[in-house]
């Protein structure tokens, strides 16, 4: 019981990070129907910007202030990256055949990875634990369930960011424009919505969310490298597909599920098959629910 609770805590923390990245995938897919494979690398860029800010500010300001600054700077600068990536790599190909932006996205991913490797070095970079300690939630048969302050912080930050994001999508003019473009870009344009700006802002928002996830990843694990975007990106993409690509609550649900599957599988099953378990469950879900858990069926318009 205590052990399962510990696994639950670990799984939810991991799932929150996956969920935040997955939202970016699902948004872009919803609005222009392409998989942005460079999204995982934007997450990595966010983590590195956070690292640079934290290293620069450590010792100058208090730690909570440095962490807040890392989140804000990373989100803003990654937003700029998201904007530029869309302008440079995807917009010129928007009218092209379906595979073109996909290939361009893979190219962008390689460019970003190599760019960080060259400018930041190939070695893993680490920061000391900035928010150490935690509380013992429960004791049973000598096993202490540990809830670290960092885990609490991750869950709180993720929920706060998702709340703001949901508010943007459901209550603001920008969110309305996003939903309109998602439903029918041509019709939205005819009704006076600037689709180009809306798409750009979607990329900016998605990148900012990924950056927040990147900084949390950095703070939680403490070690990052130029290659972390690939793995995290693939997991988050899986989360988006599992939840139903195009569905925002689905992305968060998918992320949580993948985090929990990973935690419980490694807690009870053979650790080496952790990733195999995640992808097998994805395959099984897609067999019965081809559009994911919360995805809508694509209606073929005649």
């Amino acid at each position, binding site marked *: 019981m205590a052990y399962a609770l510990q696994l639950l805590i670990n799984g939810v923390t991991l799932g929150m990070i996956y969920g935040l990245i997955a939202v970016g995938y699902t948004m872009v897919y919803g609005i222009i129907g392409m998989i942005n494979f460079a999204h995982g690398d934007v997450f990595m860029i966010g983590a590195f910007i956070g690292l640079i800010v934290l290293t620069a500010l450590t010792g100058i300001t208090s730690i909570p202030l440095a962490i807040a600054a890392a989140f804000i700077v990373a989100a803003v600068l990654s937003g700029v990256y998201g904007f530029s990536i869309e302008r440079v790599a995807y917009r010129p190909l928007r009218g092209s055949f379906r595979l073109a932006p996909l290939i361009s996205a893979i190219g962008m991913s390689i460019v970003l990875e190599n760019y960080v490797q060259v400018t930041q070095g*190939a070695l893993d970079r680490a920061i000391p634990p900035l928010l150490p300690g935690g509380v013992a939630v429960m004791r049973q048969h000598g*096993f202490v369930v540990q809830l670290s302050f960092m885990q609490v912080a991750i869950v709180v930050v993720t929920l706060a960011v998702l709340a703001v994001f949901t508010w943007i999508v459901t209550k603001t003019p920008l969110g309305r424009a996003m939903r309109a473009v998602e439903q029918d870009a041509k019709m939205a344009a005819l009704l006076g919505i600037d689709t180009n700006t809306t798409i750009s802002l979607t990329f900016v928002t998605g990148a900012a969310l990924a950056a927040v996830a990147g900084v949390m990843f950095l703070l939680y*694990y403490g070690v990052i490298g130029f290659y972390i975007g690939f793995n995290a990106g693939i997991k988050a993409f899986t989360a988006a597909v599992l939840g139903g690509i195009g569905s925002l609550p689905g992305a968060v649900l998918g992320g949580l599920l993948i985090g929990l599957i990973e935690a419980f599988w490694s807690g009870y099953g*053979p650790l*080496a098959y952790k990733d195999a378990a995640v992808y097998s469950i994805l395959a099984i879900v897609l067999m019965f629910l081809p559009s994911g858990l919360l995805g809508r069926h694509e209606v073929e318009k005649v």
Partner: protein
Amino acid sequence: MHKLLLGTAAVLAMSAGAAQAQVKIGVAGPLTGPNAAFGVQLKTGADLAVSDINKAGGVLGQQIKAFIVDDACDPKQAVTAANALVSDGVVMVDGHFCSASTIPASKVYTENGILEISPSSTNPAYTDHGSAYTFRVCGRDDQQGAVGAEYIAKHFKGDKVAVLDDNSTYGKGIADQVRLNLKKLGVTVTYNASYTAGDKDYSALVSRMKAQGIGVVYMGGYYSDMGLIMREGAAAGFHPQYVSEDGAMTSSLWQISGPAAEGMLMTFPPPAEKDAAAAKVVAELNALHEDPSGYVLYSYATVQIWAEAAKKAGTTNPAKVAAELKKGGPWQSVLGPVSFDSKGDVVNAAYAIYKWHNGQYAVYALKP
């Protein structure tokens, strides 16, 4: 016209002469990726050896030129890197670092008749294939694993033991040797697991070991993952005795783990940098502000021993140097005298126990 031809011929003859006075060697290791700290150790040692030998007149009157390639410890990239070195025309390769790279690359070198001397790959399969061209200046996992297991059996009686590996050729190879030797010594392993190298979330692994009351954790793999496992363990209130191997032998481990690695034990050959034979080279490294520990001296010794064997054989022809390496020893090197057996393994490789304390590691015991 006649003069011009003569001039051209003279220039050609000169450039041919210059090309002949140069012997090419390769240096291959992980310069990028999670194990890049080791690639840097390899390169530092090789660079210094080449410059020292060249200053002293080179090998058989030829200056050594080193070609450095990056294999990122990836088997596929290692084969590509090996082919690149083959086309560069090298006669000897100092490398590779990870067993997972060294073994596939050795097939390329053997096919092309090029000598491969690994400063660090300890997986037995590397020299067990029976190639005449493969050597190593370090020990083997069946030696290193036995020492690790013996230490655990002797000093941590009654503790529950977990043996982890990273599923790499090297990590799994040595962990399996430890498992085998622990069994021989009558120690039951409570928990066996393989994690995925490069993973960042080890919270479940740590919780599982904590729930089982594990007291000793043996890890086979490389420093990035080990550092992170210990760090996440400390955050979750799990503080066992960690025991590991030469993949933890770099200050980069502590940068990742922080104080969580306090007291961690590792097996590694006895300190070469304290050896009298190494004093001059260690002084040179200190002058360059390079750390002489880890595999730096092993890489230096690789180039040094090859150069000595080539001089004794009177040729840089790889097949002849390989034969000379096996029969002409012991070779004087910065590691002390080194002899090779018929497989290309070091005769009488010894292992000592090292301990991490306060961000640095030092010899803790010379025998288990």
